[in-house]
Every structure is written in C-alpha cells, then in structure tokens.
C-alpha cells in the first residue's frame, strides 16, 4: 500500500498549497493552466482505473469527456437547468452511455478492445459533429451560462478554480479508496489474468463494466466541469487526439499509480506551454522526447519512484511491516496477462 507519497502529510501539504495559490497570484493565465490541468487530471485518473488497474486500454475517453461536456452544455442552455442539476445529470448520462458501450465492447480483448474503443471515440465525435439539430454541429454550442450554486456565481477565475479543485480532490480521494480496497484488488486481478480471476469466482465481465463505467463517469465529470468553465463547446473536444494526450499524461506520470495522473498531466501541460514559443519546432522536439520518455522512464515518473522505493524496501523484506498487511508489489509490466506460466 505504500506509494511514493507515504504520509498523509505530503498530500495535505499539496492541498494547502493548491488552496493558497489563488491568494498568491491573480494571473489568470496561471490559474487557467492549473484549472485545465485539474480538469484533465480528473479524466486521466478515470483512464487510469480502466487502463492502469483493470488492464483494458480504453481509447474512448475523450469521447466520454465530450458527452459529459455537451450534456452539461445542452442541459444548461437548451433545457435551462441549474448548474448542479445539469452536472449530476450529465455525469449520470455519461455513466449510462458508458455502461452500454462497456457491455458491447468489453467482450473484446487486448488490442481489439483498444482499437474498438478508439472507434467508439470517433463515432461519438462524429455524432456530436453531425447531430446539428441538437449540438449545433461544428459551429459549436454557444452561450453556456455561468455556473451558479444557489445565488453564488462562479464568475471569477478563482471561484472556478476552487470549484474544480474540489472535484479533483474528491475524484482522487474516491480513486484512492477504490484502488486500495477489495474492489481495486479485484480490478488488478483481472488485469493480471482474467482466467484466474474467473476461477476465483469473480464475475470478470461485471467488474470490467464497473471499472469502465467509473472511468467514463470521471471523464464525464471532467467534461462537464470543462463546459462550465469554458462556456463554449466545439466537437473537437471529443477528438481522438485528446485521448492520446491523456494517454501520454498517464504514461509520463505513471500508469497504475495513484499520483501519476496528476503529476503527468500537470508536468506535460506545463511543458507544452513552455514549448509554445518554439512554434513549429515544438513537435520536432516533443516527438523524440516522448520516445525517450517511454524508453527511459517506462513506468512513468511515479512508477520509477515507486520502484526505487520497493527496491529499498526489499532489502528489509525479511521483516515486513506488521502494520501493513496490504503491502503491494511493483506495478505490472504489462497491461494484461501478468501471470506466471510455470
């Protein structure tokens, strides 16, 4: 159960810093960057549950992000519902669509599932784009009102920041609880060997769907928050490139680690902004960098740190910590099928 942030104190410190930031700067660009990073972190952490812990690489995440965003946008503009109600419905709707998609697609295995979900993502994008009577098509959905809870308007950057920070903390907390629980272990056992999990009486399909729905719910939440923040939607938010961006954040941060999504998303987004001024040289530099990252940091930043730590711990292996019966080994090499065939 030990990840690199061993004590609650580090997490608490981070949280306090995060809360303090708007008080220290009013630079809307910096706040905007953090807000975007938080929003994407929520979506990426969902991807982490299905891909990292359950071993099913879903590439439809941006599609579900789009569903969440458009649901909120449409409910607030066309149905003129309140922000909170729209948020709840948007998230629930994404989850329901996620369940349907999951039931169909999770019968597929390995790369088939991955590419299939990629296609599901493309379909979602195309539907958003073509269903003009509902979504306004490529022109985009305009005029999403400023989110309001009661009489409080989230008009300023810092109020938006706190709103989204709240949901980020919530999402990370829930994920942490899940991953460290029996449910999370069940997911991990499916990643390792579906056959064995099945033999142990685990309803693999149901658990996969559960993990998938959870991941889509987080994507939907992120999308809905995004819509409430940016207040203008174009179909491209559901595009496949965003899925790959998310995958990249996840890998850089460390797949199947709790803090990976946050670390990866924040770092890569900041890096991309720093590289902005390089203009057309940006991708010439960033492409190879990406290759180098996966070559030399194959488990991402948090994965590498965790490994360092397990290595250190393993020297003390003979005297396990009595209070930590839930000690976990290193994260898996493979997405699926990490069983030993003797």
């Amino acid at each position, binding site marked *: 159960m030990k990840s690199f942030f061993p004590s609650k104190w580090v997490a608490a410190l981070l949280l306090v810093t995060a809360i303090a930031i708007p008080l220290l700067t009013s630079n809307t660009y910096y706040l905007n960057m953090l807000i975007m990073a938080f929003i994407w972190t929520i979506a990426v952490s969902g991807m982490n549950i299905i891909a990292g812990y359950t071993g099913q690489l879903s590439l439809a995440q941006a599609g579900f992000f789009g569903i969440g965003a458009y649901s909120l946008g449409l409910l607030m503009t066309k149905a003129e519902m309140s922000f909170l109600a729209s948020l709840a419905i948007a998230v629930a709707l994404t989850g329901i669509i996620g369940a349907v998609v999951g039931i169909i697609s999770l019968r597929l295995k390995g790369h088939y599932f991955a590419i299939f979900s990629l296609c599901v993502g493309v379909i979602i994008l195309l539907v958003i784009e073509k269903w003009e009577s509902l979504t306004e098509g490529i022109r985009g959905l305009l005029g999403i009102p400023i989110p309001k809870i009661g009489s409080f308007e989230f008009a300023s950057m810092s109020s938006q920041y706190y709103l989204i920070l709240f949901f980020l903390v919530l999402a990370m907390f829930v994920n942490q609880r899940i991953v460290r629980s029996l449910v999370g272990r069940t997911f991990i056992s499916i990643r390792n060997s579906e056959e064995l999990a099945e033999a142990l*009486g685990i309803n693999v399909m149901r658990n996969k769907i559960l993990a998938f729905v959870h991941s889509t719910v987080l994507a939907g939440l992120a999308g809905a928050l995004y819509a409430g923040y940016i207040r203008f939607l174009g179909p491209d938010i559901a595009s496949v490139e965003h899925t790959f961006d998310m995958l990249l954040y996840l890998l850089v941060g460390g797949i199947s680690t709790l803090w990976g999504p946050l670390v990866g998303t924040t770092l890569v987004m900041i890096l991309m902004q720093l590289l902005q001024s390089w203009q057309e040289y940006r991708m010439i530099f960033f492409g190879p960098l990406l290759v180098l990252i996966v070559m030399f940091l194959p488990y991402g930043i948090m994965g590498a740190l965790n490994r360092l730590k397990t290595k250190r711990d393993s020297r003390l292996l003979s005297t396990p910590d009595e209070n930590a019966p839930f000690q976990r080994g290193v994260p898996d090499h493979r997405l699926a099928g990490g069983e030993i065939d003797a």
Partner: protein
Amino acid sequence: MLKAEKLTKSFGGNKAVNEVDFHIRKGEITAIIGPNGAGKTTFFNLISGFHQPTSGRLLLEGVDVTKKPSYRMAKMGVARTFQTTKLFAEATVIDNLIVGHRLRTKSGLMGAVIQSKRYKRDESACIEKALQVLDFVGASDLAYRPVASISQEAQKRVAIALALATNPKLVLLDEPAAGINADETSGLADLIKKMKQAGLTVCIIEHKMQMIMNLADRIMVLNQGTKIAEGTPAEISQNETVIEAYLGGAHHAQAH
C-alpha cells in the same frame, strides 16, 4: 458430490471429451489419468465451467449446473488450479490470496469508498482467510514476497492456497506436481492428504503415478476423450487396457 452424465465436448469435429460418465464422491481424493491429449484438462474445464459442454449434464450435489459460467461454479464451491501455474505475478503472495476470498464478500464500490462497516468486516475477513490458507499450505513465511521471487514449488503451494481461499467444497488440481522434484512431490502429496483430512473433496490430474497410487481413493482413466477404466489404484494398476494405453511396462518397475 459432482456427477457428470454423458459429458461431451467437441472442438470442430474433434471430440476432446466423449460421453464421459463420472462421479466424484464427497470427501475422497479422485484422480484422472490418461495419455497426453486424452482430454483431462478439457474435462476439468467442463466441470469448472470454463467451457460449455457440447452435450451431457453436470450435477453438483444434485443441482443441475451444466451451463454455469466458471465464476458461478466457484461461488458454488468448485475451485481449481491450472496446468500452468497461474498467479498474479508481480503482487505479493498475500495480495494474491486476498482476492481469493473476494467471492465470499458482498460489499461493492460504494462501500469501499465510504469505508462502511460491512466493507471493513469484509476486508478483514479476506485478510484473515489469506493468512489462514497460507498457514494451511505451510507458506506463512512467504507472505510478503512478490510471487515472481519464490520457488516454483512454493508457487504451486500458493496456487493451491489461492484455490482454498475461495472456501471450496471441491478442489480441482491440474498436474500440481509437474516440474517439481521427488522430495517436493512428497511434500505436496502430504498437503493434499491434509486437504482431505480437513474435509475437502479433491480431484487431481497427474502423471506422477507413484504419487497418485498412494494418494487417490479412486482413479478414472481417459483415453482419446473416452473413459476406459475406473476404480481403485490397485484395480487400475492391474487393468490391461490401462497398462497398454498409458502405464506401460516401466510403471511396474517404478511404482512398486
């Protein structure tokens, strides 16, 4: 306990298991032997729900379980190990085992998130069970080692422990002694006896005849998908058909 009636499985035109009638009796150790490709593993796959039979019936304690998927079979008390030891490689031994008891718990995602009372109870039940079965197979000292780092024989024990963690009534073992040496094999045989003493029903596939002859109460012999003999070890070792199809001459030299 478990009864197979005319159980058949064909792959394409090839009948891997052909109209096998068989009865596993409660509290006994039953063995299945037969040449390679005889259909033993396939038979296991059928009675543990991994494959659906092409025809025939399967009864568990009188209940028809013919088309039940494997996770349902596990819940009904049928646990199995695999011919190639399957374990969650990179987790520690204890972590492997905790999931083993998951099927006996009911709390779900919500419970885990809010850490409900029931969830906490479930969690400690799982840990307790894991430690208990680990003790049972005699591998308590390995609890915190990553599975990949322990010996093959230990992995076999852990695989059995994993099956036991599901609270089974019937345990199916597919070649548990393959690839381990004589010394360790006898240790494993002791463990299987201990399981029987603890009231479990065991069904085992094995090629190590010496072990089987000492261990089994009854033996079924499969050949090319059909049952060619059934009986006590003594009967089987005298059975001409079996000797011809499977045991061969060397058997006498070795087993006695």
